[in-house]
């Protein structure tokens, strides 16, 4: 044995043994209490094994009820995509327009008007003749770029245009687009700025 262990009573070479005293009852009770509390915790925080429930959502029902409804904010995301593929080439991804191609949409009084009737008519009918946008006259032609889009999609694009680039206006609903389509009827024709001013806002 080493010097250090010589100072201890030499451990017997016999193998260790264990006593047979019983486990006190309180240990089992503690385990059961903790198991119960654990079950309660899992019930509140476990989402019952649902793969879509992540903390802090407590259940699939809560997650479902908290989903943001397809409101303006959701429409904007959609509208942005459609804008970039349909309108952005001429009006610019930044809404500033391009000279000799398309007037700006950022700050445009047609976009920022309180009512949406005139705005909804533009993509559904197109523009021919002159139109004044932000004190500049534009004498170009616009096809009815939105005529082929479904109501909800066109509403999303217009909502996006109305809320982006500092315009800060509210949404255009699918109902607005539907009403405009109904008002246009079977023969849409491109209008000039003056003709559109005769429409109610």
């Amino acid at each position, binding site marked *: *044995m*080493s*010097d*250090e*262990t010589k*100072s*201890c*009573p030499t*451990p*017997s*070479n016999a*193998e*260790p*043994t*264990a*006593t*047979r*005293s*019983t*486990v006190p009852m309180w*240990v089992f009770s*503690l*385990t059961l209490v*903790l*198991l119960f*509390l*654990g*079950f309660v*915790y*899992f019930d509140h*925080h*476990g*989402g*019952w*094994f*649902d*793969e*879509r*429930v*992540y*903390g802090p*959502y407590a259940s699939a029902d809560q997650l479902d009820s908290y989903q943001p409804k397809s409101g303006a904010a959701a429409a904007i995301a959609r509208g942005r995509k459609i804008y970039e593929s349909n309108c952005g080439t001429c009006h610019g991804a930044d809404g500033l327009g391009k000279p000799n191609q398309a007037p700006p949409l950022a700050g445009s009084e047609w976009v920022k008007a309180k009512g949406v009737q005139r705005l909804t008519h533009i993509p559904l009918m197109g523009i021919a003749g002159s139109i004044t946008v932000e004190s500049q006259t534009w004498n170009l032609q616009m096809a009815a770029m939105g005529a082929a889009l479904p109501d909800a999609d066109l509403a999303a694009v217009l909502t996006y245009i109305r809320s982006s680039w500092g315009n800060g206006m509210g949404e255009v609903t699918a109902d607005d687009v539907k009403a405009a389509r109904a008002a246009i009827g079977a023969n849409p024709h491109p209008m000039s700025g003056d003709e559109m001013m005769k429409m109610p806002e």
Partner: protein
Amino acid sequence: MNDLSQQKIDASCRVPLLALFGGAALWLVVGLALSIIASLTFHAPQMFACCSLLTYGHAQAAANDAILYGFCIPAALGVMLWIFARLSQAELVLPLVPVVAAHIWHVGVLVGIVAILIGDSTGFAWLEFPRSSSVLLFAAFLLIAVSAVATFGQRKERELYPSHWFLLAALLWFPWIYSTANLLIASGHPVRGVTQAVIGWWFADNLVFVWLALVGLGVAFYFLPKLAGKPLQSNHFALFAFWTLILFGTWCGIPQGAPVPAWLPALSTVASSLLIVPLIAIAVIVVKTVCGADVHCKGGPFCYIKFGSAAFLLSGLMLIASACPHFSRIVQFTWFGPAQEQLQILGFFAIIICGAVYELLPRIMDFELPFPKFVRFQHWCFMLGIVLLAGSLAIGGIEQGLKNYDLATTLPFLRASTTGLLFLLLGSLLFAANIFVMTLKWKLALIKSVIAAVTAPLEVSEVKP
């Protein structure tokens, strides 16, 4: 059982255990040195900036794996073989198998460490060794397990002692978790997406917490009664601790707030809170077994094992705390996690295994330790080192969490932890010195006896007339 048969039992373990412990001691030194290099990166980021080998991402991973796979597991298996031989009161069965396996193991670790340093790591914590290395480790472990189970099967006393349960469970645990992790996440066709992380957490918890706990407690429950001269208190309580540890401990891996469905971290939180039960049971067993023992082993193996048991309880409490949602919001992703892991690996496991090795080494070699004073010196180095390392990282982690992950506020704590690592390195050098000199002395004695046998004058009867 007379002394001679005890000697034979001990002697049968000599070669395999020296093969395991020799490499293990070397890996402990290497691992702690790499830890120091990694930790220095925070004080002086420019220090190892030139070479890609020693960048923090490589050095820290290599250090962790060198200590766990290089030191902890082989040393654990060596002590386990001896305990099985002693409890069975039979010589080690198939003694050559662990010798071969030990060499395969250490080669595997070398391949793995080099792979990590050159960048060929798998990217999963505690599983960084590439396939070339993990196959070697798996094979070596199975070989040693065969010898261990065969020795266990030779036992004359059929009733099992508590250490048997813990150590046998460990022999099943490691191959299962290691093969699962290597096949499902560190492979050419891993599972998809975040499932990899879930299995990675399951593996890390089962290896670093549960496996080390099983072996460490199995070793502690063997040596504490032996060194205290009292029986273990008690068999039933140890059975209760065993069952609750393996039932609850294995579910503790998933961290709070992880990007996985809520049921996974919820289950882990519940399991972690239930972990208090086996901790209480183990605390009661250790305290009742140790208290009242009329033993004053200054800095000897008994002190090692007592300190290690206390460190286990503290590490378990830290694990439970870091699973509580409110506390984890502060300490998650801070140094608190590494503090708990280092406390578990170095503070609990390494110290218990070193104590066990110091206790059994003179017996299997049949001569005294070459540097007996080192035992006490190492004990103080390790105690101080662990307190500095784990303590400062834990407090630094809480501070880091409260201050918005601002690393600058934790620099003084990191400096303290580096100092702790230096003490641990010193202790590991003392350990390695004892083992190497002992191996050298034994080899020299072997050579001397061979030379003596060869050059001895012939007996008259041997010469043909």
